């Protein structure tokens, strides 16, 4: 029924574009800080920090694994809060929707990293890539849940439709994740005889190791902020471009009549 989009939507809208990109002084500073953080983390994680008595060298993987997991959880938390604010505030501001979307995307990235790196660490520590640990299993479910969320964001419709649909879905995920985690945990408690090394309970972290982990958290927080700010601005630009395209298409249609 719908005709194809008018071709002119792809032409440049009115008004000069003197700046391109989504960078500002603040984000450049933030990006530089993040890079410093990454180098710092690599130096401490791979170099200065000692091997663990139990886990030996493989403890070094935890300095990226644990922070990326934490930041992924934080990212999904931000998505939930932003979705809630979007849905329950009177203004229904799309800014909150885009923050939710950007944060979920970065969260999925970090969670994917967590799972892959966690499997590498598991291979060294447990001897297997995957262990049916409660936290691990529910993390995998969470990953798939947010992949689904991102898919739903791309379903189309007006910006407000997208925002409402995905905000509701994000809040449903908040309902779902504790349930999944709780049930998986109960399920695992049945099979306790297969004792699993608790991912971090077994490590005796000395001062330098704790400091390295701390560096990791800082580096990942900086990366998270930088990525979310840029992604969110890009989404805002995409939305604005859609609106500008619509103005042109309306003008086109009006001209059609004459």
């Amino acid at each position: 029924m719908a005709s194809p989009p008018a071709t002119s939507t792809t032409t440049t809208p009115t008004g000069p574009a003197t700046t391109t990109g989504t960078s500002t002084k603040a984000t450049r500073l933030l990006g530089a800080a993040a890079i410093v953080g990454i180098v710092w983390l690599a130096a401490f994680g791979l170099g200065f920090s000692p091997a663990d008595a139990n886990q030996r060298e493989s403890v070094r993987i935890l300095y990226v694994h644990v922070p990326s997991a934490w930041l992924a959880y934080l990212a999904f938390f931000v998505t939930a809060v932003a979705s809630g604010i979007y849905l329950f505030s009177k203004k229904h501001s799309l800014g909150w929707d885009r923050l939710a979307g950007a944060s979920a995307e970065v969260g999925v990235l970090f969670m994917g990293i967590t799972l892959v790196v966690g499997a590498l660490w598991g291979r060294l520590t447990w001897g297997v890539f995957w262990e049916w640990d409660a936290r691990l299993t529910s993390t995998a479910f969470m990953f798939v849940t947010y992949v689904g969320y991102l898919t739903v964001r791309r379903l189309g419709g007006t910006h407000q439709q997208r925002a409402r649909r995905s905000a509701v879905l994000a809040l449903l995920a908040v309902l779902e994740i504790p349930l999944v985690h709780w049930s998986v945990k109960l399920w695992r408690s049945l099979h306790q005889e297969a004792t699993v090394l608790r991912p971090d309970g077994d490590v005796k972290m000395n001062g330098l190791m704790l400091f390295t982990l701390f560096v990791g958290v800082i580096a990942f927080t900086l990366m998270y902020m930088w990525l979310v700010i840029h992604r969110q601005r890009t989404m805002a630009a995409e939305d604005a471009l859609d609106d500008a395209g619509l103005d042109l298409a309306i003008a086109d249609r009006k001209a059609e009549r004459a």
Partner: protein
Amino acid sequence: MTATLRIAWLVARKDLRVEWHSRVALNQILPFAAITMVLFAFAVDRLPAAPGDVDTVLVQLAPGLASLGTVFSLLLLVQRTFAVESEDGALDALRAAGVDATAVFWGKTLAMWIQLAILSALLLGTAVVIYGIEVRWSGVVLLVTTWLTATFGLAAVGTLYGGLAAGARGRETLLPLLLLPVVAPVLIGATRAVEAALGTGGTAIADGWPWVGVVAVFAVAFGAGGTLAFGPLIDE
């Protein structure tokens, strides 16, 4: 409130009547579910060596396989119930007529619950027969409670996400992506509870009740979630 219930009942009866006339669940989904139970036996590859032998692995797995079969059937039932709605634009017409979305949710959930409950009972029956399970009758209260609670939870969550996927491009693949991660608690809880009820895993009947608790919490959560979220999700 009474208007919501009246319309919910109307929608449920309509869905059941559609099935009564078309027999799609009976003639297509049920045979599919039954054949998966047979395929599971192939996958486990432990059919008894001699006639009269009972394979203990299959017996142990039976509750889980029946739950899995139920979840797969749920996917098909959800696709079917929303295909009925979109075939001639009826879901659109329901929205255009301003029919209360909460009532539609409860009506479709109720109809799906009834169909899924019958389907899963037949599945479990199939498992008992073809895997050679000795049923212990003392667990029947636990079994029936689990059966009703689990199928209700699945019906509610299936209707909720089915409604979201119904209008979307690529709905056939979107639905499992959304639905399968969510149903994990039911799969886990129902499997353990049925195991305890039948005595296949060597667990006592009393051990099954906490698992019914898991399933019940899920059912309540998604009953409530669907009541609130179905409207915004189906509304384009």
